[in-house]
């Protein structure tokens, strides 16, 4: 032990004695070494510091080591800088809100109403952002039907032009300042005995009404005057019921009960009254496989969406519409034994009118006559016809009223006079109307506005009206608001916010309440109103909270319809008077008649700043980004206007003059437009004085940026046609006579998505037949399968193309899922709601007018519209025309009255996809679920696939739409706020890659995952594509073809089903059901 210790000690002392030295300096302990060892860093001063502190670079010295340091630092710095990725701060929730899970959408039921469109809807939100709007199929009066305007309204939420703060005289202010100022002024005005006028759109909200009542109470019932104004007036129909039955109201029409529908210029599929309700009702009876199919007659001037779907469409002049109604009245009276009025039937399509009357009479009580006219007297005749046919109480409800369109044209006119006289002290203008833009006498109104002491606008943007008001108290977007609605008798709906206010805005009603001295939030207010209402029903055991949350979850609630207080007894004097008025209003002289209407996308103009809607092709003309003079091609030819438009072929410009007012617009030849008439869309020419109403409301140039006029101002899109509207018979008249049209100098580029308008006799693209033939003939007669001659066993046999295959089948039949879609051409009305739904779901870029004109629209889903042609190959042969001339004439649509067919077209997900075989890098491949899928990452952009697509549905990213300057004004993804609308489940595609319909693969994946999590097999209908969801007529069905019980299996086996271009042998997964007309 001791020995060991000793050894260890020795070892240790040995180690301690040993001395290690770094250099000879240390060994010898030189003076320099001793000095320098005191200093840890050998250099007394660091030359880097020298270098950095020295301003005169010539004096610095950089030695080799420093040089290497600099070099090392610079290289590392440069490298790190190059690697830097943008820092995105994502802050996790401290407490996760119960209902929000990142990556999982949340849905809220809500309601849309803007004066034109009404709909119960469901809002899809992701991470607290509303990104998609769909119809509420379970609740509400519209059966889930929405228009493209409604489903695009989610984008308007993120409009960067929305006011971020309230404004006083054009400057941002705080709400306190605004409230103080306005309250003071209102008090002063009320004291001075001047009138306080509230100018609003139609209000169908009980709580808003109640808030207005409070406001009235505060400032005196007699002083506060409420004027209701609709930009597009349907005052005549309400008035006509007052004349006919003594009650100003609009009854509820039930198109689903009507076997015969006669519409005289009522565009009930797009803009006439409660159209979102009528469309699904109408579609219900358009299934040719049921015992009967409704028959739809349309007498109209312009080719409307409704007219293009009619079984019998008769073009009549706008000025003849009253006479057509009278003639129809007589024909019906002849059959029912009613009183006939003496009318001259000169120039009227009497044969068609008589046929319509026959059908109406045979289906009396199950028929419906409607008219689009805003002339109360013409509507009185309609009422009389319906009354004769016994439609009241059947197709026209005597109990349920429709409360929209309460605008009173006479009162609005009177208001301007009052304002001029200075009697109006304060004018409060609600945000959903824009009278400075949409009043025909807007100039008059604007100058009258200056005479009003206090002008307050509640518009969300500094639009034409708001920018002229002293105060702007920006209203919330409807997706940020609480509200309730009472659209028809017995039906209450709720709107709830789906996102916190984006900007410092306040709800209109809340402002009113505040000024009335009521500080409750509007949410509580609405709840109170509902509570009061329900308690008034006197049910003791009623649990309000249950009721409220139930209503909130469903978005609406239906209650018992109270008994009506009127009877459909025609006032015969009223009829006689109306008849004499209509007769006296015989067509005036003048070369042309002008019909003013609204378009499917833009509506009354409130959607003009929505790029999705500007880019949405009009269902009929297929023109985007403009309004124009639609003229019959025969008239256009006569007047020497250009007939072929699109791409590099511009339109002729013309000047329309009506009653001293004129407009210069491009002329678009429109088959089906009654000769001698033209039609012009309202809702364009917004922001004519450069008001900041939104990026995409102005014309953009060919290389991006805005087009500017000679004064350097931005040019609005299209021209404002509202000034042409005239006030006659106490109401706005949109049908004008005595117009002259003269050519103007220059041409104008028109952006259209379709240049060829006829089908060229290609019946394997679109198949159609008549109802009687469909009912009587076998399938082979109307849905002829395509057969090819095949050499088999030494002889030639005819074989169905579906049975011939060059390729091996994809092993998808009976294995796993196989997605398919079926589109019913009979019920597709071409409304284009699916197009915008697809746009919104799939982050489809907006490319602007110039790119559309170049034929580069990006729509994954488009609606092809074909007109009939007078020529076909057989006729050409009979007439010995020769094949060249025959084809040339087949390119020309029928000018007078073509039949129209709509065909939604998107990727057909071919099972033998020609695109898949040609891609050199396998970027487009077939999934084992039958989908034709695009792998954007792999795509190198040869466009070979697009060339080889027989349906031409592939869309190429010609530019970097999300960053290239040209699209800064139009593409929402280039705007910091609008970008929030993008669907996080779908990639925003980069430049140079191909894209196309994916059959909403993100929804399929989500649906499958959902089923997997639940551990249940996927239910039919659990997954639905955006287009199918948006279709108001349920014309699109989607499902799993391998699911034996699925709807799509029945659709696929249907006798009307065919595959487009079957003979090419690409075996699409999409099928169409041929169109059946009840003609």
């Amino acid at each position, binding site marked *: 032990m001791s020995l060991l210790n000793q050894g260890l000690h020795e070892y240790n002392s040995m180690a301690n004695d040993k001395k290690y030295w770094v250099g000879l300096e240390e060994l010898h302990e030189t003076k320099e070494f001793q000095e320098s060892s005191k200093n840890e860093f050998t250099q007394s001063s660091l030359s880097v510091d020298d270098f950095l502190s020295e301003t005169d670079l010539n004096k610095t010295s950089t030695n080799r080591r420093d040089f290497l340091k600099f070099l090392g630092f610079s290289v590392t710095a440069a490298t790190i800088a190059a690697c830097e990725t943008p820092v995105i701060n994502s802050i996790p929730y401290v407490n996760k809100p119960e209902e929000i899970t990142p990556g999982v959408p949340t849905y809220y039921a809500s309601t849309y109403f803007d004066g034109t469109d009404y709909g119960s809807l469901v809002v899809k939100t992701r991470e607290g952002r509303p990104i998609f709007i769909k119809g509420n199929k379970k609740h509400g009066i519209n059966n889930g039907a929405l228009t493209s305007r409604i489903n695009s309204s989610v984008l308007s939420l993120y409009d960067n032009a929305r006011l971020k703060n309230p404004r006083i005289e054009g400057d941002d202010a705080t709400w306190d300042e605004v409230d103080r100022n306005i309250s003071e002024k209102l008090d002063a005005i009320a004291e001075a005995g001047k009138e306080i006028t509230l100018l609003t759109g139609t209000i169908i909200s009980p709580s808003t009404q109640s808030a207005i009542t409070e406001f009235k109470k505060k400032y005196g019932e007699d002083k506060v005057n409420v004027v209701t104004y609709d930009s597009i007036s349907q005052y005549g129909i309400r008035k006509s019921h007052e004349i006919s039955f003594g009650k100003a109201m609009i009854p509820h029409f039930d198109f689903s009960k009507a076997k015969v529908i006669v519409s005289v210029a009522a565009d009930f599929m797009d803009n006439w009254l409660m159209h979102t309700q009528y469309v699904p009702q109408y579609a219900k009876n358009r299934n040719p496989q049921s015992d009967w199919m409704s028959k739809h007659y349309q007498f109209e001037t312009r080719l409307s969406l409704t007219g293009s779907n009619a079984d019998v469409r008769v073009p009549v002049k706008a000025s003849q519409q009253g006479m057509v109604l009278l003639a129809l009245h007589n024909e019906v009276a002849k059959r029912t034994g009613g009183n006939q009025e003496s009318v001259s039937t000169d120039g009227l399509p009497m044969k068609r009118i008589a046929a319509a009357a026959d059908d109406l009479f045979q289906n009396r009580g199950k028929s419906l006559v409607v008219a689009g006219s805003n002339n109360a007297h013409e509507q009185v005749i309609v009422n009389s016809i319906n009354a004769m046919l016994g439609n009241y109480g059947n197709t026209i409800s005597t109990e349920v009223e429709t409360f929209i369109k309460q605008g009173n044209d006479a009162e609005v006119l009177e208001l301007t006079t009052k304002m001029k006289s200075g009697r109006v002290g304060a004018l409060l203008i609600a945000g959903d109307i824009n009278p400075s833009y949409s009043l025909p006498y807007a100039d008059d109104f604007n100058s009258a506005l200056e005479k009003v002491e206090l002008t307050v606008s509640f518009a969300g943007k500094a639009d034409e009206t708001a920018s002229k008001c002293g105060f702007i108290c920006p209203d919330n977007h409807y997706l940020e608001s609480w509200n309730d609605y009472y659209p028809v008798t017995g039906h209450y709906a709720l709107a709830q916010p789906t996102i916190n206010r984006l900007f410092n805005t306040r709800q209109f009603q809340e402002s009113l309440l505040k000024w009335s001295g009521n500080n409750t939030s509007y949410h509580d207010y609405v709840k109170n109103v509902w509570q009061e209402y329900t308690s008034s029903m006197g049910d003791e055991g009623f649990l309000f909270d249950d009721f409220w949350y139930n209503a909130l979850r469903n978005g609406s609630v239906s209650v018992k319809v109270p008994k009506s207080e009127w009877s459909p007894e025609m006032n015969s004097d009223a009829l006689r008077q109306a008849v004499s008025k209509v007769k006296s209003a015989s067509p005036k002289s003048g070369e042309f008649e002008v019909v003013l209407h609204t378009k499917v996308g833009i509506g009354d103009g409130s959607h003009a700043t929505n790029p999705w809607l500007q880019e949405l092709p009009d269902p009929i003309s297929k023109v985007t980004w403009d309004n124009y003079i639609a003229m019959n091609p025969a008239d256009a030819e006569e007047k020497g206007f250009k007939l072929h438009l699109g791409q590099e072929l511009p339109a002729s410009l013309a000047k329309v003059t009506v009653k001293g007012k004129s407009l210069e617009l491009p002329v678009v030849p429109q088959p089906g437009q009654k000769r001698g008439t033209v039609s012009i869309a309202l809702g364009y020419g917004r922001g004519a004085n450069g008001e900041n109403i939104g990026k995409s409301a102005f014309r953009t140039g060919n290389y991006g940026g805005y087009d500017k006029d000679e004064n350097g101002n931005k040019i609005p899109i299209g021209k404002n046609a509202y000034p042409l509207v005239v006030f006659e018979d106490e109401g706005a008249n949109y049908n004008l006579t005595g117009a002259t049209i003269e050519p103007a100098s220059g041409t104008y580029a028109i952006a259209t998505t379709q240049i060829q308008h006829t*089908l060229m006799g290609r019946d394997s*693209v679109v198949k159609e037949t008549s109802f009687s033939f469909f009912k009587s003939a076998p399938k082979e007669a109307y849905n002829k399968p395509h057969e090819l001659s095949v050499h088999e066993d030494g002889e030639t046999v005819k074989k169905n193309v579906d049975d011939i295959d060059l390729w091996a089948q994809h092993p998808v039949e009976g294995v796993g899922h196989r997605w398919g879609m079926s589109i019913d051409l009979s019920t597709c009305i071409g409304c284009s709601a699916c197009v915008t739904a697809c746009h919104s779901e799939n982050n489809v870029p907006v490319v602007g007018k110039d790119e559309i004109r170049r*034929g580069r629209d990006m729509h994954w889903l488009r609606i092809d519209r074909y007109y009939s042609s007078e020529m076909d190959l057989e006729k050409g042969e009979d007439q010995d025309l020769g094949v060249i001339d025959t*084809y040339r004439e087949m390119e020309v649509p029928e000018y007078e009255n073509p039949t129209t067919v709509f065909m939604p077209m998107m990727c057909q997900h071919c099972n033998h996809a020609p695109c898949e075989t*040609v891609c050199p890098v396998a970027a487009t491949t077939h999934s084992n679920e039958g989908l034709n899928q695009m792998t954007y990452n792999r795509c190198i952009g040869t*466009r070979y696939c697009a060339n080889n697509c027989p*349906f031409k549905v592939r869309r190429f990213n010609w530019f970097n739409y999300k960053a290239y300057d040209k699209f800064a004004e139009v593409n929402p993804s280039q705007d910091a706020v609008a970008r929030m609308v993008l669907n996080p489940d779908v990639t925003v595609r980069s430049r140079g890659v191909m894209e196309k319909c994916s059959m909403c693969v993100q929804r399929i994946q989500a649906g499958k995952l959902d089923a997997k999590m639940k551990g249940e097999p996927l239910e039919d209908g659990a997954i639905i594509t955006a287009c199918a969801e948006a279709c108001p007529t349920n014309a699109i069905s989607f499902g799993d073809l391998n699911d034996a019980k699925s709807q799509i299996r029945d659709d696929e086996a249907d006798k009307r089903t065919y595959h487009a271009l079957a003979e090419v042998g690409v075996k699409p997964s999409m099928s169409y059901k041929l169109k059946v007309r009840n003609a």
Partner: protein
Amino acid sequence: MHKEAAIREPLILGDKTYHDITADVVGPIENKAPRAWYILITIAGLISLWGLGCIVYLIATGIGVWGLNKTVGWAWDITNFVWWVGIGHAGTLISAVLLLFRQKWRMAINRSAEAMTIFAVMMAALFPGIHMGRIWLAYFVFPLPNTFGSLWVNFNSPLLWDVFAISTYFSVSLVFWYIGLIPDFATIRDRMTKPLAKKIYGLLSFGWSGKAKNWTRFEEVSLVLAGLATPLVFSVHSIVSMDFATSVIPGWHTTIFPPYFVSGAVFSGFAMVLTLLLIMRKVMKLENYITIKHVEYMNIVIIVTGSIVGVAYITELFISWYSGVEYESYAFINRFSGPYFWAYWAMMTCNVVSPQLFWFKKIRTNLTATFILSIVVNIGMWFERFVIIVTSLHRDYVPSSWSMFYPTWVDIGIFIGTIGIFFTLFLLFARFFPVLALNELKSILRVSGEKYKKEDH
């Protein structure tokens, strides 16, 4: 040695000696270039710069700067591609096929024809590159091993076949051309006095010493490469034609395309060779080597191939009617009577009618007429590709998508630019490379120059 009848006209005129040949060919390389060369290369250079500028703009901005649209996804890009590939056909045909057939007259023209081939194929290869939406990912078309799992190229795609066909053709042509150049580079090296030039030509000639062993190997390699290149002459354009033939688009989906495209390619290639040689023989005073005889022979090839092309056009028309397929027949009716009828008739006139003029000996031996017609044929062949590509695409199955194609200044700029680049390369070739295969030419001088033999021995 190859024997020729004494009565046969000699292939090289003007009583040339071996030395004369060397002097005539190497002279222009040794001497200062004429002014005309500088002027021409300046013009060509400026045009190429313009073209390159357009290409940079295209790649920086996007394919949208071209006039393409959703319906017409290919237009001038692929038209130019096929046109240049077609032009690139004559060189290999002349050197390989004519070599195998022992056509001695090819020796005067094969060098420049091959150079033209190389440059034309380079121009052609440019277009499939720049027509891609994402050219920076062009390497995706190569079956490279990668980390993406089982990701592989799509061997079904004719575009992929193109990648292989063009790259093989280009490399074989380049090697063939270069092998032929080696002895000539050695000759230049031996004559060069400037040290740098001597060094460069020395490197280029790979240490050629002119030994019998060198010559044997040279002959063997030439023959093997000719054997390899011959099928390529037919394969390249057959495969290019399959880009169209295997598709489903009426007007593209045609089994006649491979032979039709090959003959069209030979047709346009010879026309381009004529265009270039007629200028070159004049400028470089090579009239004794590239004789009227050569021009006449080439014109005869043009008549033959032009007629084949004509037959193909008419066959196509007939089949479109005979098939009874409405899309097919409409595609062709639309070609000759639709909005692009002018392109169709330009093609017909230039390619079918104009070469028939060469049946007249007077015309086919007239240099001016030949020069004009060779350009006409080249224009016609460009239109042929334009007609096939654009008129088939612009009106295919679904009428709603029918549209027109309008070129933009970038489309035009790039096409003109490639012509500029092509001529720049060719001018550089003419300045620094032996434009005639001088060593090979000497072999036919001995055979055909009987007079020279008699006098000297």
